[in-house]
């Protein structure tokens, strides 16, 4: 995968802001954004527009009893799973990029993930070229891609995984697979109807990563990705 230049980035920045870029394209756009402040600003302003579009949708009266059902759900069995600090990034996958661009960074701390802010860290120094690894998730039970995994080898080292298995709820664990097959657990995601995402800056020492894997809490392999 090669990094985009400014010209190529500008040509796809609208798609990027709308979340309409395919995985490999997005990865090579992100590689460029890691060190180009001008293009970051361009994507930021288009992301604001994308949010404004969302806001235009008219309100609608929800079905009778909606409020009661939601509040019951917030206090229901799922509520016991709630724990702080939150693991991972509390944003949907398409927004992960915008958050990264906006300088939201999660730093691994002793007790869990702590949210940090790099936006006050001054202008970015001319960063070294950052490599990206990307792979799509596959699963024996599914044909085609069911998600994707990214690793950005910069500082901080970003890892991001998203998966949609079609069904199933609960916690699943996210691993990086090192050369030789050694597994390193980097986080966990919360599957809802089979779909979930996780992303964070990871400080654990990892090298020679060949892919990623998502496993159920009882160790069943749900999805594997091989990095290109």
């Amino acid at each position, binding site marked *: 995968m090669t990094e985009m230049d400014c010209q190529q980035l500008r*040509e*796809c*920045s*609208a*798609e990027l*802001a*709308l*979340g*309409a*870029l*395919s995985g490999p394209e997005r990865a090579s756009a992100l590689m460029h954004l890691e060190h180009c402040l001008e293009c970051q600003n361009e994507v930021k*302003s*288009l992301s*604001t*527009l994308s*949010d*404004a*579009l*969302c*806001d*235009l*949708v*008219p*309100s*609608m*009266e*929800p*079905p009778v009893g*909606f*409020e009661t*059902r*939601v*509040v019951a*759900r*917030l*206090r229901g069995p*799922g509520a016991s799973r*709630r724990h*702080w*600090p*939150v693991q991972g990034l*509390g*944003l*949907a*996958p*398409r*927004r992960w990029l*915008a*958050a990264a661009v*906006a300088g*939201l960074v999660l730093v691994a701390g002793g007790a869990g993930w702590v*949210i940090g802010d790099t*936006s006050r860290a001054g202008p970015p120094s001319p960063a070294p070229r950052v490599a990206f690894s990307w792979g799509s998730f596959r699963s024996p039970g599914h044909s*085609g891609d069911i998600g994707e995994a990214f690793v950005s080898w910069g500082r901080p080292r970003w890892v991001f995984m998203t998966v*949609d298995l*079609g069904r199933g709820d609960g916690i699943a664990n996210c691993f990086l697979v090192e050369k030789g097959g050694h597994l390193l657990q980097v986080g966990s995601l919360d599957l*809802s*109807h*089979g*779909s979930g995402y996780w992303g964070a800056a990871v400080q654990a020492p990892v090298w020679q990563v060949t892919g990623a894997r998502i496993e159920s809490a009882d160790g069943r392999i749900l999805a594997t990705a091989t990095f290109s």
Partner: protein
Amino acid sequence: MSDEALLAGLTVNDPGVATAFVRRFQGKVFGAAFAVTGDRDLAEEVAQQAFERAWRHARMYDPRRGPVQAWLLTITRNLAIDHLRARRRWGFEATDLTDQVASLARGPEMEAVADDAGTRLHRAIGLLPPEQSRALLLAAFRGMTAAEVAEAEGIPLGTAKTRLRTAMGKLRASLSDQGVEP
């Protein structure tokens, strides 16, 4: 109570606060979920999940990135698109966009004389050539990539990319040139 205070209140597990929060935003959230899915049952499921996710991640909200409502609606849209993508894999058809384009371009009647950002955006969508507004809505509210837009519209990929880029460029200009005569 401000939106931010209400959201902060969510983190202390007070059912009264949770009810107030849901009541304040349920119309917008359900509307956004329905706009993407076009299905009332699925929209309810998506809207419920959106509130659940907002509640679980209330402490992750960053006011510098935008108002609470925008944050909540982004969560809703992304969840709805995830559901839609899953369904599309199983062969469900996306709903027709014509009505949606019309309603987004029109905006509420009373806005005719207002000049806020939302009104300008409504107007700007109304001024887009239909093929550009369709491409934009397919990407923004159906979660389609440019390649998927090209396939859905029966046009070359380059054309789909150009339509998306041009549409976003025009809309952004409409937001930035406030108070300036056209």
